[in-house]
């Protein structure tokens, strides 16, 4: 029995390795804000969300599979939270009530397993009831299969068989064990046997009267009692193991269910928060990695939205068929926010979530990388350009065709001419390798150089600046400008009117 609610045909692996640039991504995109909103205080949901958001899916079908399930979740949120609750409770009740047994004493292993199994069967019944009652409300392939599986595997007859076993395994009629003669005629191959029905054996006793010999361990014979209990243990060893393992399997099933539901509950949490702020969300339209798509309306930085009280400014863009997007313009004009919103939307799309936009369409990327200007190296071990280029070099170790690279004021650690030259060489090479690039820069020479080339696959954006120097935080199309209006900023802060 498998939930398969995260992927069509495999369990969600909570131990998976995250991409090597996970720390940079988390820091540069402010991911923890997003994850905390999803977790809503639940550390487990945080962890599942982190693993999911950072491990992008690379094929369209897998993304659409999750999108469909998420759509079901949004329309049936109460049921989803119920299922999550059942899974969570089942695990907690086992944790609370049973110590994991050592395996040294089969009878105690069996006793604990029977009790544990009785508890777990109760939760399986609850789950099955939900499936039976609500199957019609779900449309996604994932839930249809999941509920159908529960209805099929957990039939009433099945529960009856399980109950029988759990009763039988208390061995009220004694333990029947078959054996053969091993080395030195010592008993071996102890196998637990099912007692024939009492009626039958009664009849047999009357009609055939097969020979049988009985002895009793004397009251004070402690060694004998121990020996007998060891014989019994050898008989029930395998069944105790089988039952304990089965209980563990069912527990893993609930664990997996809890894990997979955690992601969707996280999405519900985030969705609720954004809805309260009246921020729009949409299901993004992913296209194949080889294509170049990037068009959206009202795309906003979801992390900024979560940390502000008012609504945030959304941007519109059509950068379809572009490999290179260069963004220049005013300080504090929303360039970094814009770049971050691109990265976050990409990650959210590629894990099957909704996107923070009115509409969003982009090609999948094979690896997302960020290169942001960092604070001065406090350890004094290497110069700033050293540090920057060494980070760049480790990124280069991992990028491949159709990766997406977000540069934020890279190569600014040296003067403009040198920085521009490094950037120029760098970007030219990446483009030839089919890598998609968003580049926020103050390096005018570099931006101008690319602008003059009039490349078909490049687009130039600018932070909007009104004639009076005021900022709209909108990013619009526009050629690079010589100045970045630092003076504006200075003036705004120092309030020095002309």
């Amino acid at each position, binding site marked *: 029995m498998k939930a398969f609610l995260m992927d069509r045909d495999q369990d969600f692996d909570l131990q998976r390795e995250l991409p090597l640039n996970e720390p940079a991504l988390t820091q540069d995109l402010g991911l923890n804000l997003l994850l905390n909103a999803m977790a809503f205080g639940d550390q487990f949901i945080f962890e599942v969300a982190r693993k999911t958001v950072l491990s992008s899916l690379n094929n369209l079908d897998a993304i659409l599979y999750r999108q469909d399930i998420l759509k079901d979740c949004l329309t049936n949120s109460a049921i989803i939270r119920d299922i999550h609750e059942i899974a969570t409770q089942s695990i907690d009740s086992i944790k609370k009530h049973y110590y994991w047994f050592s395996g040294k004493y089969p009878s105690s292993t069996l006793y604990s397993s029977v009790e544990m199994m009785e508890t777990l069967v109760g939760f399986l019944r609850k789950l099955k009831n939900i499936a039976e009652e609500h199957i019609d409300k779900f449309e996604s392939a994932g839930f249809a299969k999941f509920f159908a599986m529960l209805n099929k595997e957990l039939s009433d007859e099945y529960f009856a068989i*399980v109950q029988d076993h759990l009763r039988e395994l208390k061995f009220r009629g004694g333990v029947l064990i078959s054996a*053969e003669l091993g080395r030195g*005629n010592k008993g071996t191959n102890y196998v637990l046997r099912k007692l024939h029905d009492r009626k039958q054996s009664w009849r047999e006793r009357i009609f055939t009267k097969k020979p049988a010999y009985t002895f009793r*361990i004397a009251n004070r014979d402690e060694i*004998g009692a121990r020996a007998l209990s060891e014989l*019994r243990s050898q008989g029930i060893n395998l069944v105790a*193991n089988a039952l*304990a393992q089965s209980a563990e*399997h069912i527990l893993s099933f609930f664990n997996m269910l809890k894990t997979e539901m955690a992601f969707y509950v996280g999405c519900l949490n985030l969705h609720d928060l954004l809805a309260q702020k009246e921020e729009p969300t949409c299901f993004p339209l992913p296209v194949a990695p080889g294509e170049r798509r990037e068009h959206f309306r009202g795309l906003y930085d979801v992390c900024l939205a979560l940390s502000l009280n008012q609504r945030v400014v959304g941007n519109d863009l059509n950068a379809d068929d572009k490999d290179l997007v260069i963004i220049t313009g005013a300080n504090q004009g929303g360039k970094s926010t814009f770049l971050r919103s691109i990265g976050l939307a990409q990650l959210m799309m590629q894990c099957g979530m909704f996107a923070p936009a009115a509409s969003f369409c982009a090609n999948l990327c094979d690896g997302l990388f960020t290169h942001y200007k960092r604070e001065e190296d406090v350890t004094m071990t290497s110069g700033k350009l050293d540090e920057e280029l060494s980070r760049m070099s480790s990124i280069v170790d991992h990028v491949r065709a159709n990766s997406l690279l977000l540069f934020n004021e890279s190569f600014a650690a040296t003067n403009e001419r040198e920085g521009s030259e490094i950037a120029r060489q760098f970007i030219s090479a990446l483009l030839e390798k089919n890598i998609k690039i968003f580049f926020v820069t103050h390096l005018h020479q570099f931006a101008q150089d690319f602008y003059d080339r009039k490349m078909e696959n490049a687009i130039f954006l600018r932070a909007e600046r009104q004639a009076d120097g005021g900022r709209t935080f909108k990013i619009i199309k526009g050629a690079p400008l010589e100045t970045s209006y630092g003076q504006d900023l200075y003036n705004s802060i120092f309030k020095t009117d002309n």
Partner: protein
Amino acid sequence: MNDIRPMAFLSILFASSEDSIKTEAVEMPAFFLDLNLDQIIDAIVAGKQEYNLKPFFYTSLGNIEAIKYRHEIMQELENEVLFENIKSFSKNMHLMRVYLTQVDKLYYKYQKERMFLDAVSIYCNAINCLVHDLSLVDLKSRGFLAFREYLGNYAESTPFTSLLAETKKLIDDLLSVKYCLLIKGDTVQVRKYESEIDYSVEVDKTFEKFKQGAVKDYRAEFSEGLTMNHVEARVLDFVAKLYPDIFSNLDDYCAKNADYLNERISIFDREIQFYVAYLEYVAKFRRTGLKFCYPQVSQECKEVFDFEGYDLALANKLINENTSIVPNDFYLKGKERIFVVSGPNQGGKTTFARTFGQLHYLASLGCPVPGKEARLFLFDRIFTHFEKEEKLNNLRGKLQDDLVRIYDILSQATPNNIIIMNEIFTSTTLKDAIFLSKAVMEKIIQLDLLCIFVTFIDELASLSEKTVSIVSTVVPENPALRTYKIVRRPADGLAYALSIAEKYRVTYDYLKERIKS
């Protein structure tokens, strides 16, 4: 008719009963320690204590026939197939003995009887396998041919075939026994198995649909020991009641077959280990490229030689340390009888002396010896005299000790002996030493026996046509580097003295330089 029939089988170690060891309590020969033969034999028999092989390795053979008998068998056993056959026979016989030991150790009757039955079964199997294996080998040695004949006859004899049949039947019967225990509270019911279904499988099947991934193994482990407690013993008694025929057959069987073991085959199992042990030991040296050969052994000819020989004890040590050993050649021809060994210290003189002794001793056991090709003398005694630590509680002086000991040797020695003297008379003046050594040497020359005389006295090297001077050598360009090569060369003490002096930086030039004015 008797000519084409193989000889009657007596022993795989001895061609005739006169050659056999007279007692198991053979002491280690006196010269073993000096020649490091104790180390060699200990290494050979290591891990084979149960066969008590040392008496065989402590006893030289007295005639060429006996040696040839062993050579044939040893050479035959160098056939890997045959060697493995014998090994697997020994393994079975060993297992049989382990089972028999258990019979004594166990307490309950039906356990003892079953272990005995299994021991006999292993024995029968060992015999039949060996009969089969030997039939596939093209045997040539008289010893193995006779043994095969004997073994084949035994295996076809009625006592053996009926033992085999009885054993097999009884084991099959016991294996077919299947019973059930019904344990309820403190009572146990024992009855025959009536095809009740395996309940663990059913439980497993019921929950199969939940299988997720690897899970813990919750099975408890139970002791694999053979001993039973009294509850198991009572169960077994009841099982015996459920199957009365089988168990009464078992009782009869054990009473009847107590003396099942054929003594001569049992002796073969022990004696063949002499060869197995030696060949396993030899294999270790061959793996590193060192050679072994079957020497010509003679009771008359003293023109002995060995090419690429080496000290086995030392080689063993060096192999363990992963360093290589330097083999040496020697030969005596015509009237030559005595090697006078001189040369720098630690150049391999003692090693050479030991090698000479070891080669002769191992040859006298009928074993292959270190070297590419060899002719050795079948001595009747070996005398050795190696310098010993001075004992404080010894009232006589060391020189006196030496002389008493040498007197003993020379008064017993005959031309058929080998004498190995290593650095005697070091505890007196050079003049005395020369005098005494010459006197001893004269005696030895008169006796016309084979001798190694390791000495620092150059004059001894050219006393007679019977002496051959050999010296340990160093590399001329680097006198500090020892080669461990022993070569025939006149003893030219000076050159070596100088090279040793240079090695210790006590030459004129060195001293001028080192001693500050």
